[in-house]
């Protein structure tokens, strides 16, 4: 399914390039995604989107894709009577549940640290706010643990993805969503950087959503949980009876 998608995206890319050239001469940056929906269906194993666009004039491009802000609990185990038990926990608010960065050059070389921090570009600059006051050591350890765990689950990037330029003005990059990606609204922010300053910024929203059977099962289990439970029991009773019946005949 991927080759046709990329092919389609390239066609789109060419079209938007043409459009950018003729129609929107005043816009320094145009960007779009190959799809604005990541659909979680029965065969979902993760998904790659193509982010592409065109810039006016020279410059570098940084792409930041962020998931919805959620609350997270980070727990620390300690040994109690020889057994490892979750002992302490710290709650963080407004943590993006997905964080991806791509750039055409190392981000620290493109922008000063203050600017990166203002825009929260790069994991080091990401604001992760614990709800309780922490000692310095703990604050650093818990923050690092949050990032490390999210990276292990491929929800945060481990390495900045490259943004590659084609012919000087056309750029493209890949955004990979793992199979365990969470549903909700996402935001792709594209920055055009020239000589240490952000010249232009384009924002493209996208959605990650369960679709079809997956969506119906999930919302059924959530919203009519009693009925779901009863149906699960009836299905199991019938399956068991059927199995007993079939194997008695054999």
């Amino acid at each position, binding site marked *: 399914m991927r080759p046709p998608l990329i092919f389609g995206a390239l066609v789109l890319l060419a079209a938007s390039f043409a459009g950018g050239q003729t129609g929107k001469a005043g816009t320094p940056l145009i960007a779009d995604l190959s799809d604005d929906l990541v659909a*979680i*269906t*029965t*065969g*979902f*194993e*993760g998904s790659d989107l193509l982010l592409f666009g065109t810039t006016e004039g020279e410059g570098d491009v940084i792409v930041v894709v962020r998931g919805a802000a*959620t609350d*997270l*609990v*980070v*727990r*620390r*185990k*300690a040994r109690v009577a*020889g*057994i*490892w*038990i*979750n002992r302490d*926990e710290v709650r963080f608010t407004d943590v993006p549940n997905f964080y991806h960065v791509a750039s055409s050059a190392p981000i620290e070389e493109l922008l000063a640290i203050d600017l990166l921090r203002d825009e929260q570009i790069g994991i080091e600059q990401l604001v992760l706010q614990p709800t309780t006051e922490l000692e310095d050591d703990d604050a650093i*350890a*818990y923050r690092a*643990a*949050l990032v*490390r*765990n*999210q990276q*292990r689950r491929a929800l945060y990037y481990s390495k900045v993805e490259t943004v590659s330029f084609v012919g000087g003005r056309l750029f493209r990059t890949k955004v990979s969503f793992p*199979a*365990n990606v969470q549903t909700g609204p996402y935001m792709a922010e594209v920055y055009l950087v020239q000589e240490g300053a952000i010249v232009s910024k384009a924002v493209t929203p996208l959605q990650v959503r*369960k679709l079809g*059977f*997956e969506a119906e*099962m*999930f919302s059924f*289990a*959530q919203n009519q*949980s*009693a009925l*779901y*439970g*009863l*149906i*699960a*029991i009836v*299905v*199991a*009773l019938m*399956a*068991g*009876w059927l*199995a*007993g019946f079939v*194997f*008695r005949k*054999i």
Partner: protein
Amino acid sequence: MNIYLPIAEMSVDVFLLLGMGAGVGFLSGLFGVGGGFLMTPLLIFIGVPPAVAVGTEANQIVASSVSGVLAHMRRGNVDFKMGAILTAGGFVGSGAGVWLFTVLRDLGLVDLLITLSYVVFLGIIGLLMLFESVRSMLRNRRTGGSGRKLHQHNWLHGLPFKTRFRRSRLYISALLPLGIGFFVGVLAAIMGVGGGFIMVPAMIYVLGMPTAVVVGTSLFQIIFVTANVTFLQSVTNQTVDLVLALLLLTGAVIGAQLGTKAGAKLHGEQLRGLLALMVLGVCAKLGVDLVKTPEDIYSIGEDF
């Protein structure tokens, strides 16, 4: 071929799930146990959230117990009166278990609760079974059979509410099966098992029921208790994945038939010895995980 499980929210290979179902089904057919105590840890090993593993496995056990109990009913090996009283205790017990599960889930201690229950109960049962089967193997070698009494009389027989159980040929206090039902109900809810591996020895050694009706009656009450767990887990925690349950079930049904055929070729004591070793193996694996220093002592908990 991967499938996205709607409640577990993960992508898993269909054939892995069918294979796990078949493997555990084979062993459960071979040994005459439900297999929940193997399947739930296996599901957790492959990355299914523990809460979903427990809730879903309860649902799967409903199905496998139904197909098992039908065969026992045809042979008249179910004591319905005893089953009803065990079920009554089991309903209250599983309700308490789901409540405890939910409270500990909010505290981030549910994984620990599940693992600890497994280590403790599998350890005890495994050792008892191993001991028992080795002893009877040695005894069979020396003499022909055993002259053990059906059951001993002790303080348990002095409890009030004496009831007659015709099918089991017993006259004992109704509080006994009620208590056992309650206890196993709590475990069913917490561990995602039917509890047969505790119920069966308890029926034989504590209640003194004849062996012929033990398995059928145990399966009979397991249906109701695991159905109750399925319902309560669906309502309180939304952790029953019907797609996962059906996939495991499909494999398990086929595996169980093959296992039953293979089991007919082995001796009772050998079977129990093997089962004991397997139980102890799972117990050891989980025990080591509890004690061994984890790769990352920090973890993320969501939704709470």
